[in-house]
């Protein structure tokens, strides 16, 4: 019974997503973009760099990079914490 509902959910979700991929997204190759056109035109004067993606990651969207650095830090600390050999070998 549970397997029947799991299959039903998966098939309904996949049909909805495939139809959405064909109809609800913009045609491939013509994205509607005004913010990106402003960034491409003005990145060399305002940020002073040739690499527009680097300027977006560190200058126009620096807060996202700050959040990502925090997540990376927390995950590495989590790995080092979980993988410590326990001191007491005998547990009752």
């Amino acid at each position, binding site marked *: 019974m549970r397997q029947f509902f799991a299959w039903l959910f*998966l098939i309904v979700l*996949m049909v909805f997503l*495939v139809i959405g991929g064909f109809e609800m997204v913009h045609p*491939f190759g013509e994205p509607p973009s005004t913010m990106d056109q402003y960034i491409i035109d003005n990145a060399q004067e305002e940020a002073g760099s040739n690499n527009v993606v680097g300027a977006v990651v560190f200058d126009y969207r620096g807060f*996202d990079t700050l959040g990502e650095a925090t997540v990376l830090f927390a995950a590495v600390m*989590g790995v080092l914490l979980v993988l410590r050999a326990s001191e007491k070998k005998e547990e009752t």
Partner: protein
Amino acid sequence: MTETLIGNFPFVAAVVLMGIALYILIFRRNLIKIVMGITILSSSVNLFLVTLGYRAGGIAPIYTDAPEGPMVLPVVQALTLTNIVIAVATSALILSLVIRIYRHTGSLDSKKSRRMKG
């Protein structure tokens, strides 16, 4: 109708990958296979993000020795970069937890480690 049927194919490829990943997450019980399903899910989202910002006949958004042509969208590529780094970090954390579970319960079946014991 047939224009969008053939032209929008990269979006549907990303959706098919997401379908495979959801099938693995619902129907498989081995813990390592579940970790692989999570990785495939984040890969499908990254593919969908990058193909959202493609301009027909576009070049890479770098001004150093750039050829002629319109540039593809750079903001979407920045989001994908962040997503890849976060996926690596969380996958390392999940794998370390799987190693601990295997040492504690002795099997990689997710049904055996479901109940919390003292």
